[in-house]
Structure formats: structure tokens, C-alpha cells
């Protein structure tokens, strides 16, 4: 269900936005646009298929714990 929604969302967005907004855009924008869309698409699809992706927050919390030991203070 969620996968279908994501597919549908991206399909609609691409059909409309690629045609209207991107036609006149600079080349660099097109490239960045495509890359970011692709990344988010992959992440969302994987997430909807219950494949877990490491959260950036884990990295952050680990780093902060190493520096300040927040966990220990509770």
C-alpha cells in the first residue's frame, strides 16, 4: 500500500514538475534535482518495504555520547 502511494506520488510529481518547472531550468539544477529525487525515492521505497536504513540520528547520538556522555547523566 505504502509502496504504491510512493510510486504514485513520484510519478505524478515527475510528470508535472519535469514538464513545467524543469524545462527552462539551468543544467546544474536538472542534475541536482534528479539526484536528490532519486535518493529520496530509493530511501522511501526501501523504507516502505521494511528494509531498515541506518538513521543519521544514531550517528549523531553516538558522537555526542562520546563527547559529552549525555546518556550517563540520564
Amino acid at each position, binding site marked *: 500500500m505504502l509502496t504504491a*502511494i510512493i510510486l504514485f506520488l513520484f510519478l505524478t510529481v515527475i510528470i508535472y514538475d519535469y514538464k513545467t518547472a524543469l524545462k527552462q531550468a539551468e543544467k546544474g*539544477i536538472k542534475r541536482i534535482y534528479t539526484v*536528490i529525487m532519486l535518493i529520496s525515492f530509493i530511501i522511501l521505497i526501501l523504507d516502505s518495504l521494511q528494509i531498515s536504513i541506518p538513521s543519521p540520528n544514531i550517528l549523531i547520538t553516538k558522537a555526542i555520547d562520546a563527547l559529552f556522555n549525555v546518556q550517563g547523566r540520564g
Partner: protein
Amino acid sequence: MKKGKVTFNQVMFSIVLFNFGSSVVMGVSTSVGQEAWIPILLATLAAIPMFLIYGRIITMFPEKDIFDITDILFGKICGKICIALFTWYAIHLCALVLRNFSEFTQISAMPETPQLPIMILMILTTIYMARSGVRTLGKWSIAVFFFVVFVVLFTFVTSIPQAKVDDLLPIGEHTGAQFAESTFQIFSFPYAETVIFLGLAGSFKKNDSPYKLFLYALAIILVVFLLVFFRNLTLLGPTMMRANYFPSYVTARIIGISDFLARIESTISSNFLFAGIVKITVCLLVASKGLASLFGLKDYRILVLPLGMFAMALCCILYKNTMEMFAFLKYYPYYAFPFQVILPLFIWGCGELYLRRQKQERNI
């Protein structure tokens, strides 16, 4: 007609709403229970110099946003690094707030609905707003501000008959360390998050004093936060307030003047979304501006959509559950500190030196 410039009131109210963002719903830090008003005041005090520094940065480089400024000050490579960091912070904050709201909506109103459709709806709305530009955001903020404040005042007034003022006691139960931690938390979430607005500074009018802007906003925020806190505390009591994820929402459930007006919480909770939309939009706009200037592009508006999608993707993988979300709040101040304090301080310092050197050059 001045294109793309926003008026003083518009910016001020969007700063206020930005600060309400998730805090009005989540309640202001509750770890010190009945004494939370002390850290609120302390954090406001701490925020004043920070806000003045933000204002100073804007006055130093009028009609420029933080991305132009770093470019001028640090040159190509260092500037790019700063821009990249700031952009990351904006997009990450965007995802965090989005998650707050989808969690809130799910828990409060739609436990059986998955969060993804909620996020889609919210992010599409904010994408639309971000694409409409800063002026639309400003105009929207004004209307919504009055609405949100009306709701806060209304709930405050209606809660008075049920309020137990005794719950404000005792004073002095918590230790200095606890206060410090709580202050730090309130300072970084939401006060110093206002640093994001440096990314929009290019749209401010030149003759509006940014100091006034930030300080007025801070005063309004302080008053509303105190109102929200007193309302929640006197109605729920410290234990219940501490036990709840979303104390404001539960407060609204308990308020009742007569049987008919006793059940207004779902209407009220959806009003909070308005403030949330402002916060997410600002983050999104700044992130796309940052990304555009990172790659030296002119048109940032097109990037709003992919960045919105990215924020949503990020938001999906951030936490596995609500408990994790609230646990992260403890780490957040440390994580945000470099972006909120160190980076602006650095820019400020460099900016002052830069200006002095320029003056000297001109004198010579």
C-alpha cells in the same frame, strides 16, 4: 512594488510562529516540572545576546543572506563547507519537525493511519508554500499568528476556573544542574533555531531594524510560552504534565466550560499544524537556498520539491518510534549548538574584522 521583500510585521510573526512550531504542541521542556518557568526565563535571557548577534550579522550585510555572507567572508572552499553544514542543519531540522507533527497527528487523532500519508500531505503543502515564496509565507504568518494566539488565549482563559495555582509550588526543588540542562534545552529548542532565518535575511527590507525584529519576536514568544506553561501546569498538575508526550493537547481535552465546549481538542490540535507549516516551510526554503548557492545556481525554487521529498525520506528513517523521538530531544541541544551558536559567532567575528578592514581600505 517591491518584489519578494517582506514587511517588518510579516518577518516578526513568522519568527514567532517558527518558534511556536512544534513547541506549542510538545509543551516547553517539562523535565523540571512546576519550576519550568525559571528555565524559560533563563533561556530567554540567554537568547537575547544570541538574537542580537543574528541581528548584527544581518545589519552588517544588508539584503544578503547567510550563504552570500559566508561566501564573502570565507572565500570559496571554506564558504562552501559552511553553506553545506548550514544546509544540512536546515534540512535535518525540517525532517525533525515534520516527524514531530506526523507523530502528533497519528497519536492524537489517527492511530490507525500510517504516518507516510500524513507526511505527504504536510510536505506537499509546505512545498507549495515554499514555491509561492517568502511574501506568501509572511502574509500567511500574520493571519495564522492571530489565530494561534487566539487559541492559546482562549484555552488559557477557559482553563482559569479549573486551574490549581497551588501546583506552581514548591519552588527550589530542583538543582542548578537540572535547571542548566533545561535552560540549555529550551535555548536550543526552539529559541536558537531562529538562526535559520539568517538564510532568509536577503528578503528582509533594508530599513527594518533586525534587532527590533528579533527582540519583539522574542518578547511575544516568551509571553505565549509562559501562558502555555501556566495553563498546562495548573490544569494537569506536574505529574500528569511530565507523563504526557503532548501536554497541550491533553490540556485541551480537560478544559471544559460547559458540556458542549468541552471537546474542542481536535479542532485546536489542527490549529497547531498552522505553526508547524510555517516552521517546515522556512526550513525548506533555507535548505533549498543553501543548496542552490552551494552549486552556484540562481533559481532555488525548483529545488524546493526534491528537497521536500528528501526531507520526507529523511523523516521516515529518523526514528523507529515515538520514544526515540523524545529521547533524541536530550541530544539535540548538543547537536544543534555548532549551528546555532558557534557558526553565527564565527561569522560575526569575521564580519566585524572584514568591515573594519574595508573601512581602513576606504580611508586609505
